[in-house]
């Protein structure tokens, strides 16, 4: 199986054959986001605005007004931050734009802080009407695309690029706004993740099982809206929650889960993510190790916390 970004772009190309409203708006990065096939097959529906993110988003809103279904193809670090105000106004206008945030998290590695997209969830979560998705595997990412295309209104999809995630879902997997997927049952603690961290938490749960810790794993591919019921149930049934994410601690998935927990079922929550620091320099995998976002480090951290 392919990686999330490649699977997403392949699925969009296939959909574009059936749905002539689909177009891609891109900022000079077709190759990076596996969009060369779309560009070759549908040159009229592939719009490269160049290196100009404010225009990237504004043009997309204009296309949506024409009845088209634009997918904004950009590294999330540039789109979500540089064009944040245009994205907010897309939501205010309730434009049918799907914002595809590629190369999310720390995937850009040694390029450093300018290129790491670790604040996007906080920004997107703050915008009314915006659906915020962070699928975990190739099939989950394609299913999120299907769900986004049926929706009237703006959607942000945080797409795992450049980093491998094992497939967890069957070919008939579906994705729904406000839904979740329990990937492992357990009674001692619930490990909650989205995006890249979900598969790592599944692996961490296996490691914990070897030590006699029975961990539930909950994948929240939809962060806004969020599956409050699944979170509250997990809190009630397992008593403690761990949330892991490749995002700053403030305002990301951990924040979203904590908001639900304090409103419904207060229990201790351990937030694992990026503290308020800019990452050091190094390859992506080194950065994930640095912040304790590998299966081994996650299992170790959970073990310590439960003690």
């Amino acid at each position: 199986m392919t990686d999330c970004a490649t699977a997403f772009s392949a699925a969009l190309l296939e959909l574009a054959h059936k749905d002539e409203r689909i177009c891609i708006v891109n900022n000079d990065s077709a190759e990076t986001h596996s969009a060369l096939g779309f560009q070759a097959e549908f040159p009229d529906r592939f719009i490269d605005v160049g290196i100009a993110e404010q225009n990237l988003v504004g043009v997309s809103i204009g296309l949506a007004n024409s009845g088209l279904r634009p997918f904004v193809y950009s590294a999330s670090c540039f789109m979500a931050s540089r064009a944040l105000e245009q994205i907010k106004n897309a939501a205010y206008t309730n434009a049918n734009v799907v914002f595809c945030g590629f190369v999310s998290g720390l995937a850009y590695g040694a390029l450093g802080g300018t290129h790491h997209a670790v604040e996007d969830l906080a920004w997107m979560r703050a915008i009314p009407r915006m659906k915020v998705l962070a699928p975990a595997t190739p099939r989950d990412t394609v299913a999120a695309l299907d769900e986004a295309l049926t929706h009237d209104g703006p959607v942000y999809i945080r797409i795992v690029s450049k980093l491998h995630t094992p497939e967890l879902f069957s070919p008939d997997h579906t994705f729904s706004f406000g839904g979740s997927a329990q990937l492992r049952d357990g009674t001692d603690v619930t490990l909650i993740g989205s995006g890249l961290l979900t598969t790592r938490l599944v692996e961490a749960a296996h490691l914990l099982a070897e030590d006699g810790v029975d961990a539930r794993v909950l994948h929240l591919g939809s962060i806004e809206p969020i599956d409050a019921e699944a979170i509250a149930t997990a809190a009630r049934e397992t008593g403690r929650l761990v949330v892991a994410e490749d995002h700053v601690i403030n305002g990301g998935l951990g924040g979203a889960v904590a908001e639900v927990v304090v409103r419904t079922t207060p229990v201790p929550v351990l937030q694992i993510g990026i503290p308020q620091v800019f990452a050091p320099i190094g390859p992506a995998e080194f950065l994930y190790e640095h912040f304790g976002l590998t299966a081994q480090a996650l299992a170790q951290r959970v073990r310590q916390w439960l003690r």
Partner: protein
Amino acid sequence: MLLQDVALVRSQAARARALALTTVSQAGIGHIGADLSAMDILCALYFGVLRGGPDDADRDRFILSKAHASAAMYSVLALKGLLPQEELATFGGQNSRLSTVVSTRVPGIEFNTGSLGHGLSLGVGSALGARIQGSTRRTFVLTGDGELQEGSNWEAAMLAASRNLDTLVAVVDRNLAQKGASTEDINALEPLDEKWRSFGWEVRTVDGHDIHALLDVFRSAPLTAGKPTCVIASTTKGKGVSFMERNLEWHSRRITPELLQQALQELEEAPND
């Protein structure tokens, strides 16, 4: 051009000015200087150029980037029958649809603008959408001059020319004034026509209160096949009311009932030829 077209636009502009003045005066908020500056451009477009109503998918698109000229816009929409005229009295009030920068709550408004510098990108997207759909519909964007200080305009201007979007018309309401001073004292735009031209646009400068000239240039666009059109409309902030004209205080100053009467009287007495 038919003289009655010009006469129709002119009379609607006079009515719309009276509505906008009354609206802003009663509400105690708004940007009357900008409303009056843009009014003739709006009326030329709405009563002489734009094709199709809000429910027509292939309608011409109009985007008010200088969204604070909202009382003018709502007054025109009221005269077009898209908004009950009595609703103008709710302008900016509790739970009104009429935000003081325009929004899509009102039929006929395409986008929620208001933060300056966003309209031209929306227009480029709209023109690209028309091309993808094989439509010849046109897109008009009305920008203020001060908002051309936003860099996003020039991102959009570059792309429009590079994609030969000749169904796109940008109209600059060139009243030379921004909130507190002249554009040229704050962050100079001149030579503005040369800027647009160097970005690949066909440029015309017209008197933004000359209905005949406005209709002529809007109906003639594209002026050059393959090029987007920029109409620099030289305007006067507060146009039509002598004590407001060219007076920067009237960007958003409150209009007392006495001054409103004086302004309405002036409009009534103005020659309507």
